[in-house]
């Protein structure tokens, strides 16, 4: 979290300076007022959201996912994989290593991509943040609009890769040096 904090802090100071140049102290004060009005009502929601995030992190385990992905085929597999992606907890440094580990499992490539599409679209642990920091109606509509997208994307991936498996894909497209390392 140190890097995002540093980047945002720099962006904040730059933006404050620009605001000062454009509208003087009055506009800078206005910016702070907007922040002060926004934060208090969101505090209970943020605390509740992190409580849910913590519980989800412990409830959902990696082992169960591996079993489910191997269990289904056809449309059921697409649906299950997209949902599993959405349920899979954690930031990129947790789910990419998980996928990397699945490379050797000889899974269809389109399912591999579908997992990521599901994770990026449905991410259950991100939802509390989306609702609390943006707004419930916008979050709801965004989720309704994007609901079928991972399934449509799975169809496109299936068209491209047919029944190619992860083992074939990574053997074909990965540089030999990298292959040896994995």
């Amino acid at each position, binding site marked *: *979290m140190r890097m*995002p*904090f540093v*980047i*945002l802090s720099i962006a*904040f100071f730059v*933006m404050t300076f620009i*605001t000062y140049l454009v*509208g003087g102290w009055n*506009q800078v004060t206005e*910016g*702070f007022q*907007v*922040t002060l009005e*926004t*934060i208090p*009502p969101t505090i*209970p*929601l943020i*605390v*509740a959201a992190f*409580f*849910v*995030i*913590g519980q989800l*992190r*412990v*409830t959902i385990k990696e082992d169960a996912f591996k079993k489910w992905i191997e269990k289904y085929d056809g449309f059921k597999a697409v649906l299950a994989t997209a949902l599993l992606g959405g349920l899979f907890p954690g*930031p*990129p*440094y947790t789910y*990419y290593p998980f*996928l*990397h580990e699945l490379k050797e499992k000889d899974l269809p490539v389109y399912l591999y991509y579908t997992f990521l*599409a599901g994770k*990026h*679209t449905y*991410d259950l642990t*991100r939802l509390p*943040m*989306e*609702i*609390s*920091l*943006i*707004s*419930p109606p*916008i979050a709801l*509509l*965004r989720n309704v*609009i*994007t609901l079928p*997208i991972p399934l*449509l*994307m799975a169809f*496109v991936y299936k068209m491209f890769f047919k029944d190619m498996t992860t083992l074939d894909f*990574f053997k074909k*497209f*990965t*540089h030999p040096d990298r292959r040896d390392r994995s």
Partner: protein
Amino acid sequence: MIWPTLVFAILGISLYVYNLKQPGNEATKAIAVGMKIMVRTLPVILVAFLLAGMIEVIIPRAFIENWLSTEAGLRGAFFGTLGGMLLVIGPYAAFPIIASIYAAGGGFATVVTLIFGWCALGLHRIPFESGLLGVRFTLVRLSITFPFVFMAGIIAHAIDLIIH
């Protein structure tokens, strides 16, 4: 904000009760996990809110109207898709910024594509993805995902036009 807080409280308590029944003191561990993440991310959230406040007062009205509002049409969806992709920060920081663009007059299509563009195309994930799964894998995913994010913007724009 009362209703979403209540929903989360109920969801959180339900999950807590479920975890309480699991062996290994999982429920208490989950509270500690949640609070640890919160403490770690609170400074980021705070700075993001400060930045969002400045963005809200600094973005020129004309820019919003021409490029990001409902009137901007599909231009808003396109710039939202690109903008979401370029927001290389976590959700705690990205969401307040997106909310500030919406509050400043950004159209629904822009907001939807900003969120979805950030979720599906965010460049902050590229180092992990290309490092672990390869550059080609990442390029294939990005090139297939981009039109879908834009398509979500088109649908959002149509909904916006119907609502208004």
